[in-house]
């Protein structure tokens, strides 16, 4: 009796719920029927038979209407008898979802539909709890593609990958965080799209999930100001003419660009857009923001556009009007960079000039914490899924490379001259080319980028000055301390640290936190999904890893694949190398400086050998402004004069290539290994190291040409004429009938060559 009552109440509740959507009752019963058939093998025919029997028993005419009425009741009853309330809700919701999806399909496929209508239809769909019953995959895919096209990106390669990872609900979340103009459609642009996609690849909603990543990876709070806002802004201020600047020549583009700031200063956003900004600022509160460019072309599969457009930090503090002014100023700066010479020339080189480039802005809360006036994350950097910095054959290129810094990642992204981010080969994270305390300290990061909230600008501070001023709770993860030659990371948090003896090594961070294993997985997942190497920008703070940006091409040009020329006649090849090759393409080299290794080895006196280093320095200064390549014996920059020519960085800083040649003599080959003492200097200065072992199979250098070509040393630098038997200064066109030297290096194939060909 009690049981019957319970079933009755259950049936009553179900019916109530169904009757909230009377127009969907039929669809719901259809779903019920299919699950009854699937789960308890009760099919429609059986129910029909039972209904007929019941009608007969009650002596009711078995008209179609009556049969249907009985069948509906019996289906409902069977569902109540066999399934729990939660499961029944899922089936009811599935009918609702299918209904809303149908409407969504109609809306997204209507020509000229407004974003607002799509947003409404999307919201209607997504307000139904997700549950674990799903609409038809093919229909969902169609909607996903249409939504991605409308709100995110119209780039085909992007859509092809994104539709497999980004769900309808993801797009709803994006739209919830998007701001747009009521007058113009628009998209969120490449960078924002890349970031959304990367997050979904790493933390999928539907596919296999990874608890470690779910715990450790956090998503920075992001908001999207879509391109419509900026198209509206341009029209509102009659600035449409800017879009044709790109067809001018370089000089005119530069001239025109100089005038833009004054025009932008005066330009204003429509008042409803300004209201939107006000609402946004009220919602995010006072927290430093980074406004990242996110143009249509940017960060899309195939063209990195890295660093071509501006990203602007804003303090976002003060009165609401101050914040609004700062925010609008930031947006204008980002927008302005669309018309800068650098991106336009970049597009020109890649045949992208005719594309109607539009700018969107990705506004993110800056990852970090405030210490005094300074705001910064514990660490940040760039990670590459392919490692071109393989100074040891033990390093596995495919495991990737991380460039890690303390503080804001601007320090890792930019080439920083005399400072050194921590370079971490993911396959061997603790392997580093420096050995010994002084080397490690020398090649450690000395300056930190922070955002000064009071001064409202980025500041570059000495690391030690910074950590003396503040008390950073995670410092023990970042530093190692030199105790009488023993460089060791603190054993525990709170250990007394002599800051004067410390330097940034990230030893504890790399060995005692989930960072490395998480990053390894992230790079692998992204590369697998994109089908090509990726690089990501990230920040780490308060025990969480934040992914800030993801793209398929690196800002480090050596990651872009270089195709080696084929079928080059031997007399046009200067060298072939096949060990320790990093990606590089250097064209139009006019001068060659060759320190003959055999002649160098014949010199017996120390002073005389040291003099060669001096001559190389003089030649380097002489060739300032010319494109030249330097080749010589063994290890450049070695302290041991027998291992290589003794030079300092200023003696070689103008060369494009530094070649280390090791001939086999007396049965042993010296290991040039790129003179890793100053390899970091070379990496930072963009000088390409090349190692050539001419006596090993597959490698070659045209020694004869180098030794017989006209040596201009005596003519150009007469004071060093007596060294002409060792140092050769060769004018390439004069020695090769007017051609220049072009150098191709492919890291993946571990092969490179230098060839003589006409100017490119």
């Amino acid at each position, binding site marked *: 009796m009690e049981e019957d009552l319970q079933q009755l109440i259950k049936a009553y509740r179900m019916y109530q719920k169904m009757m909230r959507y009377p127009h969907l009752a039929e669809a719901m019963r259809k779903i019920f029927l299919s699950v009854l058939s699937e789960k308890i093998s009760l099919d429609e025919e059986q129910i029909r038979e039972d209904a007929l029997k019941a009608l007969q028993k009650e002596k009711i005419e078995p008209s179609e209407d009556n049969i249907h009425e009985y069948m509906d009741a019996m289906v409902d009853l069977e569902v109540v008898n066999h399934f729990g309330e939660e499961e029944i809700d899922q089936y009811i919701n599935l009918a609702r979802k299918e209904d809303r999806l149908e409407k969504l399909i109609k809306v997204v496929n209507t020509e000229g539909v407004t974003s607002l209508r799509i947003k409404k239809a999307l919201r209607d769909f997504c307000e139904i709890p997700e549950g674990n019953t799903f609409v038809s995959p093919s229909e969902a895919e169609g909607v996903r593609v249409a939504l991605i096209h409308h709100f995110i990106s119209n780039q085909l390669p992007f859509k092809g990958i994104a539709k497999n990872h980004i769900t309808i609900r993801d797009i709803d979340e994006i739209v919830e965080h998007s701001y747009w103009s009521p007058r113009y459609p628009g998209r969120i642009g490449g960078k924002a799209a890349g970031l959304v996609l990367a997050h979904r690849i790493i933390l999928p909603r539907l596919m296999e999930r990874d608890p470690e990543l779910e715990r450790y990876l956090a998503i920075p709070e992001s908001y999207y100001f879509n391109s419509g806002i900026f198209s509206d802004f341009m029209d509102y201020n009659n600035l449409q003419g800017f879009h044709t600047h790109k067809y001018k020549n370089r000089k005119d583009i530069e001239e025109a660009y100089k005038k833009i700031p004054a025009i932008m200063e005066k330009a204003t956003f429509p008042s409803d857009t300004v209201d939107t900004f006000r609402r946004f600022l009220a919602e995010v509160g006072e927290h430093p923001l980074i406004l990242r460019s996110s143009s249509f072309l940017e960060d899309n599969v195939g063209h990195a556009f890295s660093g071509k457009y501006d990203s602007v930090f804003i303090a976002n503090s003060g009165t609401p009007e101050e914040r609004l002014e700062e925010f609008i100023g930031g947006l204008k700066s980002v927008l302005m960079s669309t018309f800068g010479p650098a991106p336009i020339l970049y597009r020109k080189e890649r045949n992208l000039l005719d594309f109607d480039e539009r700018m969107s802005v990705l506004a993110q809360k800056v990852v970090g914490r405030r210490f005094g006036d300074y705001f910064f994350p514990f660490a940040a950097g760039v990670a590459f899924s392919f490692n071109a910095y393989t100074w040891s054959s*033990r390093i596995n290129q495919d495991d990737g490379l991380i460039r890690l810094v303390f503080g804001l990642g601007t320090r890792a992204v930019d080439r920083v001259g005399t400072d050194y981010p921590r370079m971490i080969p993911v396959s061997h994270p603790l*392997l580093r080319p420096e*050995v*010994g*305390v002084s080397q490690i300290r020398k090649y450690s990061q000395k300056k930190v980028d922070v955002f000064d909230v009071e001064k409202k600008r980025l500041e570059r501070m*000495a690391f*030690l000055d910074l950590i003396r001023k503040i008390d950073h709770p995670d410092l023990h993860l970042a530093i190692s301390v030199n105790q009488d*030659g023993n460089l060791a990371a603190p054993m525990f948090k709170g250990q007394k640290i002599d800051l004067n003896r410390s330097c940034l090594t990230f030893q504890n961070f790399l060995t005692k936190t989930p960072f490395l294993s998480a990053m390894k997985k992230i790079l692998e997942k992204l590369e697998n999904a994109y089908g090509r190497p990726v690089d990501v920008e990230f920040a780490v703070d308060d025990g969480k890893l934040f992914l800030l940006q993801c793209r398929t091409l690196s800002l480090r040009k050596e990651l872009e694949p270089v195709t080696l020329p084929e079928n080059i006649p031997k007399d046009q090849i200067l060298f072939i190398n096949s060990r320790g090759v990093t990606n590089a393409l250097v064209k139009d080299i006019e001068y060659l400086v060759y320190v003959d290794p055999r002649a160098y080895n014949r010199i017996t006196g120390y002073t005389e050998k040291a003099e060669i280093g001096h001559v190389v320095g003089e030649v380097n200064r002489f060739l300032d402004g010319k494109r030249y390549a330097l080749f010589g014996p063994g290890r450049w920059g070695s302290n041991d004069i027998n291992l290589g020519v003794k030079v300092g*960085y200023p003696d070689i800083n103008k060369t494009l290539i530094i070649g280390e040649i090791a001939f086999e003599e007396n049965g042993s080959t010296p290991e040039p290994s790129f003179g890793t003492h100053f390899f970091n200097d070379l990496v930072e200065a963009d000088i390409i190291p090349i190692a050539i072992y001419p006596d090993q199979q597959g490698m070659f250098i045209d020694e004869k040409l180098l030794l017989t070509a006209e040596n201009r040393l005596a003519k150009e630098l007469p004071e060093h004429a007596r060294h002409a038997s060792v140092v050769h200064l060769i004018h390439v066109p004069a020695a090769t009938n007017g051609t220049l030297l072009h150098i191709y290096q492919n890291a993946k194939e571990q092969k490179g060559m230098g060839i003589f060909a006409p100017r490119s």
Partner: protein
Amino acid sequence: MTEMLNPFRIAQRELDHAAEKLGLDDATHELLRWPMHELKVTMPVKMDDGSTKIFHGFRIQYNTARGPAKGGIRWHPDETIDTVRALAAWMTWKTSVVDIPLGGGKGGVICNPKELTDTEKERLARAYVRAVGRTLGVTRDVPAPDVYTTPQIMGWMMDEYETLTGEHHPGVITGKPIPIGGSQGRGDATARGGIYVVREAANALNIDLKDATMTIQGFGNAGQHAARIGRDLLGMKLLAASDSKGGVYNPKGIDVEALIEHKISTGQVGGFPDTDAITNEALLELDTAVLFPAALENVITAKNASEIRCTILCELANGPTTPEADEILYEKNVFVLPDFLANAGGVTVSYLEQVQNTYNLYWNLEEIRWRLKDTMRSAFASVFEMSRNTDVHMRDAAYLVAVARVAEACKLRGWV
């Protein structure tokens, strides 16, 4: 490697020169020309990836007439037995010139530490001790850190030795981290020893160093300590300092602490406020009371020696002056404190570490410093006296003192 540049041949030539001046008998001379004991070892080491790599190493006990061999262990890809032999010979003369009761030794492993992870380094360190352990010991041979080996590696090696013997033997190796038997005062020992001999030299030459200038080429660890201790102990002012990227100069003197701070935070001395930039070459030629070459080999050569204008040249680095330059400096009356005297503070404190380990009693910093001071003072006195008595420059004099002491020990033992 050509014969001219073979380090062991160079070491032998230097000995030949000293033997001739001392008039050593042939047998003693011949005995001192060769290492007394050489061990070549082959070590299999398991790598992190499961593979096994075979490493080769050496341990040379060059001469133990004056006491157990003493000398570092080098890890270097270009290590050769001749380099290790030469360095073992130099250690013999170095311990002798400062008159500590030790002989000379050296060890090396052919490996590239840049390509080894920490766990692999530990296994290699332990494998080396298992291979050469029978010849080590506080009464036989006491290694120390050298090129690319660190206090941590010394700690692993000591632990392996103690595991082999089943006893505590902290004195089997020096340069250990302080918590497991390392000594106070090792950090600035080389620079401090150098300053002590500079002070002795100034006394001997009757020079007042108060407010006199010092110039430091190579503002790394030793250079920074020298600047600080030179200021504190001798009242000198820093005229100029440099590193591999260039130097800074101020005739009114440079604030040492602020410069160290600047070097630590920026990685270079360049750009330090209130100074002019100066090249490394020009810095060596400054008119200064004391010049400390503290970084590289062969920076003072026949080419620039005649331009060197310091009164005292204190070689904190190894081999900053070429033999040709030595003669020119001597002619110019530049007073050279040769490397193996000037930078012997390091090995002296290593010896003091060994003594403390044997006593199982540890001294404070003050005690280490006065012992170091006494040792350096009497070492200087012996060398200076030899220089004056035999009318040779200080480097030759240091060789003569050192070789004579080793020769005497060999004689007294009845070996020759």
